[in-house]
């Protein structure tokens, strides 16, 4: 009986304790130094030349500590700590899909972190309107480091946001183009195409020889809409995508409809292989690395996979999207963007954060390239040795004369989802190109009217 009572009491205590298991404090990811200090800056004090102001910089990110932005900020903060031992960075990782929701929840309770990733222009627009983020160009100017970014980047980011000034900070410098397997091209006797007719001839030859011409990751949807965007701005010029996003150019424009039709025909002809809507980005990259597909349209971030591959060596090449006859766009128009941008929270912005920004961002480019092989638009202070693929991308970037954007780059989220969701039935001919464009048009008009 006593044993039963003791056992009952222990089990009851365990149950009670487990009820509090969910009440843990916010999980601390690896910070670049020891225990976090309070968020408020204490009065600056100097000890042996080092500023001992205590400040924890809260960073909301989609990256692991050893990846991309998180790795760069961690590393540079560690350097900053030599003279500012009281400054630490605390990273909170979140899945990219959950990012817009998390940001809006934090914004509604005025508790946005000091610095955070943001991947949507409409989310940024809400934050700008409500004064929840700082104007990044003004912050850099105030910190005296506005030259850490070239003028073209200020303008580029402002254009992508649809504002007069740059409100967010870039983290990467990406171009998108067609990666191709040089070995497969050689074995099949085809050369790098520059025009659309040459490109389709290459695809036909590869298909006839039993090679899947293109790995298209339509499961993620944006992999397919990129083809429509590229075809459109090759034919109508880069401004056409901006016009679509502003509701000035209709998706039912004959050229846009024809671009959608070409994409559909490419799948019908078998250029994308079987089950295109089941192929996600990882599978497409595996197919490229395994030599199961000859080409893949994706961004310069593919270099990370290439450099991590034991089999591909220097077999991969990079080519521009083909041009169209009589197209208003040029071969120098590339779809470029700046990675997952960073926003600076307005609520806790103070001198300590400004000083940290003044240290970190002029050094961002050098640190990212040297330690991660990551290309960024930040002004470089030093010379660096680059890998084969990084140099390939840098060489391709030299050819950029015009910057295009993706089809849904600043559409309201619902319109953007409509454009992306309906590309899957378009690919497998469940809807016609005209129907696809009409559905997109209606969604764009409806959502833009609400703004």
């Amino acid at each position, binding site marked *: 009986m006593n044993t039963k009572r003791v056992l009952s009491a222990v089990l009851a205590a365990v149950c009670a304790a487990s009820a509090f298991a969910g009440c843990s404090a916010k999980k601390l990811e690896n910070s670049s130094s020891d225990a976090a200090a309070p968020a408020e800056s204490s009065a600056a004090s100097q000890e042996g030349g080092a500023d001992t102001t205590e400040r924890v910089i809260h960073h909301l990110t989609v990256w692991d500590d050893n990846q991309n932005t998180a790795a760069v900020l961690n590393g540079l903060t560690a350097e900053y700590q030599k003279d500012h031992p009281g400054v630490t960075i605390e990273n909170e990782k979140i899945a990219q899909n959950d990012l*817009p*929701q998390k940001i*809006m929840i934090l*914004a*509604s*309770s*005025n508790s946005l972190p000091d610095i955070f990733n943001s991947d949507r222009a*409409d*989310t940024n627009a*809400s934050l700008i*309107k*409500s004064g929840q983020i700082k104007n990044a160009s003004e912050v850099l100017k105030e910190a005296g480091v506005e030259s850490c970014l070239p003028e073209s980047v200020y303008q580029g980011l402002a254009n992508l946001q649809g504002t007069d000034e740059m409100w967010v900070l870039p983290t990467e410098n990406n171009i998108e183009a067609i990666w191709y397997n040089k070995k497969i091209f050689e074995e099949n006797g085809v050369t790098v195409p520059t025009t659309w007719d040459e490109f389709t001839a290459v695809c036909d030859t590869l298909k006839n020889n039993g090679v899947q011409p293109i790995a298209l990751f*339509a*499961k993620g*949807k944006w992999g397919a809409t990129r083809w429509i965007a590229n075809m459109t701005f090759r034919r109508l010029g880069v401004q056409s995508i901006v016009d679509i996003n502003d509701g000035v150019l209709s998706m039912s424009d004959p050229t846009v409809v024809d671009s959608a039709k070409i994409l559909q025909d490419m799948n019908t002809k078998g250029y994308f*292989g*079987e*089950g*295109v*809507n*089941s*192929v996600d980005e990882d*599978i497409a990259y*595996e*197919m490229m690395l*395994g030599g*199961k597909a000859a080409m893949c349209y994706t961004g310069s971030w593919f270099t990370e996979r290439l450099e991590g591959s034991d089999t591909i060596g220097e077999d991969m090449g990079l080519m521009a999207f083909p041009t169209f006859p009589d197209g208003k766009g040029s071969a120098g128009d590339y779809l470029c963007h700046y990675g997952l941008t960073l926003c600076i929270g307005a609520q806790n912005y103070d001198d300590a954060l400004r000083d940290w920004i003044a240290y970190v961002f002029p050094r961002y480019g050098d640190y990212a390239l040297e330690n991660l092989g990551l290309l960024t638009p930040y002004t470089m202070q030093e010379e660096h040795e680059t890998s084969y693929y990084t140099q390939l991308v840098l060489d391709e970037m030299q050819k950029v004369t015009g910057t295009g954007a993706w089809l849904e780059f600043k559409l*309201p*989220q*619902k319109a953007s*989802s409509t454009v992306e*969701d*309906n590309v*899957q*039935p378009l690919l*497998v001919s*469940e809807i016609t190109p005209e129907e696809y464009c009409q559905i997109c048009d209606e969604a764009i008009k409806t959502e833009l009217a609400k703004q």
Partner: protein
Amino acid sequence: MDKLLRDKKAIAAFVLPAMLVYACIVLVPIVWSATYTVYDGVPGLDFRFVGSQNFTTLFRDRDFWMAVTTNLKYVAGVVTGQIGLGLLLAFMLMFGLRSHKNLVRTILFFPVVLPSVAIGQMFVKILEIQPQYGLFNSLLEVVGLGAYAKGWLGESSTALICCIIADIWKAMGLYATLFYSGLLDIPGDVIEASQIDGATGPQRVRYILLPMLKPIIMMALVLSMTGTLKVFDSIYALTGGGPGNATRMPTMYMQTTAFVYQQYGYGSTIAIFIMIECLFFSLIINKLLSKDNTI
């Protein structure tokens, strides 16, 4: 015990804590969500009163009604499959198997305890076509039907059926176990008497077993229907609502509207609709139950 149960203060002391928790976790959010239906935007940021606009939008929203239609097709398929196959399996366990009943019951019940996401991922692999054929496409190839191999989850014509099959497979063991326990409660002499009277197998099922299982069948219907009307996790794991919107359910549309499109008011409106829909179907089934006077 009688004295305790007649004491209202004692009843309140036992029931009140649970009711408070229920009210805080269930009732308060429902009322809160209902309040949001007359607003638009993001709470705390740009929330504005819009009156009945969200309801007007709901009735005109083609995407929403497409999701409701998809859901009703899904409910019809899954409920029929789960109840129908559950019954068949129960009859097999009761009358078909001579030995190893416990082992077969355990195997049948095994999918029920697996997480929905794990089952979703398993079926994604089974139905895979790239980078290599999954189990199903490989089997088709082996039996000479390789021409029919396709991305089953990537085409609108087959994606919903795959989702239905996955959910039937997951839960039919649960219903088989429920019906089997119901069959065990049927007196053996009733079945013997029917045999003596010359009733055939199908006649026994139709005139004796099914009527006596009716309360359990009705309960299973309620369980299956409310579960399928609110389905989210298994479809999300399998197709994410795609291809296009072919497998998008109202719950997924609600989640996307509120948390991705940042239209919390309209998302709440959809949530209220789903709640009313579930209540409506539960009411119908309750009416059938009380009509039969079986409870």
